[in-house]
């Protein structure tokens, strides 16, 4: 029976840890969670670290965020796997904070709780027509092509027109554009979800517009991602030459920003380069600068479906030295399209019992220590509760950013232990307590060994199709894998 055998884990827990272990629970098994676990295990020999995740599969955005055609970026799972296999570490998948177990319960059972569950929602534009069908958050689209079970049935409309509009010019926007434009023969040998691959093979999208409020000197992407999309076979890249004119304020902004400078140079160069041979299946990528969305337009033929966007031209005004913002000019233009992807930022969701700054979308914290009251001079500390990753600093940065983020949070925990603010208490039931509670609630915990079996299964399935893996993408498939 696949129902988790708590007893085996209990005996393991007793055999490997001294009488008073420091009981640590990390919520979320993405890069922030795994780096935190790794640093805790290293810094504290007495620490016993349990990582829980709401999905049965570990690794968070390395699995469901990193693009399928970036396999090198996913190599870090080897390191995370070694952490999960550490004798003082356990992974418990299929455990949802808030429903399987509440935050107060976790804090009762563990000496230290680190929340690193990321950002599973999206910022909104807040303009008319945003709820028309055919408009998606980039996150949903990314989850869809990466086989996240929550977006398995998104079925984005790729067939009703030849044009897609993407709001945002960051790396997520570029990932999404690349997946829409790249020849599917090249995607076929990646770990892209099969449902997404077959939908992309039938896609009629040939033109993608990447829309940004500001100019090429302010584009939020990085050089690697930009270089990659500009290099797509048979792709015509369109940038208005007038948009590339630099003002002194732009120069000032780029002066001390290596990324912006290199991105600007790449964009400038791409204006002069065109594919040499006309292609049988031409595709176009349009960088549209100095435009902001004003409203979504509804289709006349298909009620409730988007048929275009109204854009307002913008201009830049200086707000601080080296910083400009876009403001509307009152001039509008319409752009027809059949699908819209909003890549304007992720958003974290709070759970009951967690202080949350709704404006910033993060948990108020002091170098990872959760603060319950930041008003006035007196800040109050939530003893034993910490944050790391996007929940702590907002949804930006690369995988490596979480390494430094985890170092900071773990340094705070170490300091608090040293000062006796946090102690390893004999009354905290830790792993045994959690497993008992989950057992009582009939939550089927997925240990790391079970994931390793699913992992082999995915690789075997992939092997048959010349893919590195074929992901299990529906809750039913995942359930079934747990039964086997």
């Amino acid at each position, binding site marked *: 029976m696949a129902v988790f055998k708590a007893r085996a884990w209990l005996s393991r827990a007793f055999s490997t840890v001294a009488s008073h272990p420091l009981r640590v629970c990390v919520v979320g098994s993405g890069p922030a969670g795994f780096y935190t676990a790794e640093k805790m295990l290293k810094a504290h020999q007495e620490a016993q670290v349990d990582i829980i995740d709401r999905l049965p599969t570990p690794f968070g955005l390395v699995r469901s965020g990193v693009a399928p055609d970036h396999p090198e970026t996913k190599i870090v799972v*080897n390191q995370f796997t070694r952490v999960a296999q550490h004798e003082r570490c356990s992974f418990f998948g299929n455990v949802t904070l808030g429903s399987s177990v509440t935050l107060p319960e976790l804090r009762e059972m563990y000496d230290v709780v680190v929340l690193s569950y990321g950002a599973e929602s999206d910022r909104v534009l807040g303009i008319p027509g945003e709820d028309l069908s055919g408009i998606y958050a980039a996150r949903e689209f990314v989850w869809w092509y990466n086989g996240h079970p929550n977006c398995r049935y998104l079925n984005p409309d790729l067939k009703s027109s030849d044009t897609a509009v993407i709001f945002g010019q960051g790396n997520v926007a570029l990932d999404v554009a690349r997946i829409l434009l790249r020849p599917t023969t090249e995607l076929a040998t990646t770990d892209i979800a099969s449902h997404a691959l077959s939908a992309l093979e039938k896609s009629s999208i040939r033109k993608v517009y990447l829309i940004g409020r500001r100019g090429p000197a302010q584009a939020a992407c990085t050089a690697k991602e930009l270089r990659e999309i500009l290099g797509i076979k048979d792709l015509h890249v369109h940038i208005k030459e007038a948009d590339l004119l630099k003002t002194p304020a732009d120069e000032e902004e780029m002066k001390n920003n290596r*990324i912006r400078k290199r991105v600007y140079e790449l964009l400038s160069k791409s204006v002069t380069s065109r594919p040499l041979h006309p292609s049988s299946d031409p595709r176009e990528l349009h960088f549209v600068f100095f435009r902001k969305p004003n409203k979504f337009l509804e289709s006349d033929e298909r009620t409730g479906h988007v048929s275009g966007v109204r854009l307002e031209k913008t201009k830049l005004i200086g707000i601080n030295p080296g910083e400009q913002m876009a403001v509307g000019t009152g001039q509008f233009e319409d752009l027809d399209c059949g699908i819209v992807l909003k890549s304007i930022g992720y958003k974290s969701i709070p759970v009951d019992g967690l202080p949350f700054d709704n404006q910033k979308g993060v948990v108020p914290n002091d170098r990872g220590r959760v603060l319950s009251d930041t008003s006035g001079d007196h800040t109050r500390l939530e003893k034993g509760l910490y944050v790391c990753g996007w929940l702590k600093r907002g949804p930006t940065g*690369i995988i490596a950013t979480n390494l430094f983020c985890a170092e900071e949070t773990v340094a705070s925990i170490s300091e608090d232990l040293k000062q006796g603010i946090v102690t390893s208490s004999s009354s905290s039931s830790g792993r045994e307590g959690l497993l008992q509670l989950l057992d009582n609630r009939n939550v089927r915990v997925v240990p790391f060994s079970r994931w390793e079996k699913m992992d082999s299964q995915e690789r075997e399935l992939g092997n048959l199709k010349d893919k*590195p893996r074929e992901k299990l993408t529906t809750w039913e498939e995942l359930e079934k894998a747990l039964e086997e």
Partner: protein
Amino acid sequence: MLVSRFSGLGRQMINYLPKVPLTYAPKTGNLHASYSYFSHALKPKTFSTTTAHEEEAPQVEEISVIFVDNNGEKHIKVPVGTSILEAAHENDIELEGACEGSCACSTCHVIVRDMEYYNKLEDPTDEENDMLDLAFGLTETSRLGCQMIATPELDGICLELPAATRNFAVDKCAKAT
């Protein structure tokens, strides 16, 4: 020059790695696996003349490399042709290598202490520069450990781990997803 071409080749091969299933291996196991993967592939082409004399065990030249981190200096010997990342891991130096040497992350960032040595290195490729863009605490003499291959001219080079100068201004770090 020859050496840097090798590392380029290795990188290209890494790009084809998706066809080779990634295996979970013990610490640094996969690093070795991926290195041996391309050194194995390269050997027949580059060292074919030496294969007949394998018993003679050709002498491998070594250079001295000094690593500086929070705990002070560590002097190690590095065989010529070895990458700095590989050498660091073999000597238990805490240099991260999240992508295991495929030039796809910035975690093996090191700072060359002396400009004189920095100038002896081949210029970074566009790909390395793209990753350096995102490195935490980038300096004028920053490089990626996985792209630096030990050559005789580098004997005595001193490399600082960014951790030695790191503060915790995480949110000032590169903004890229």
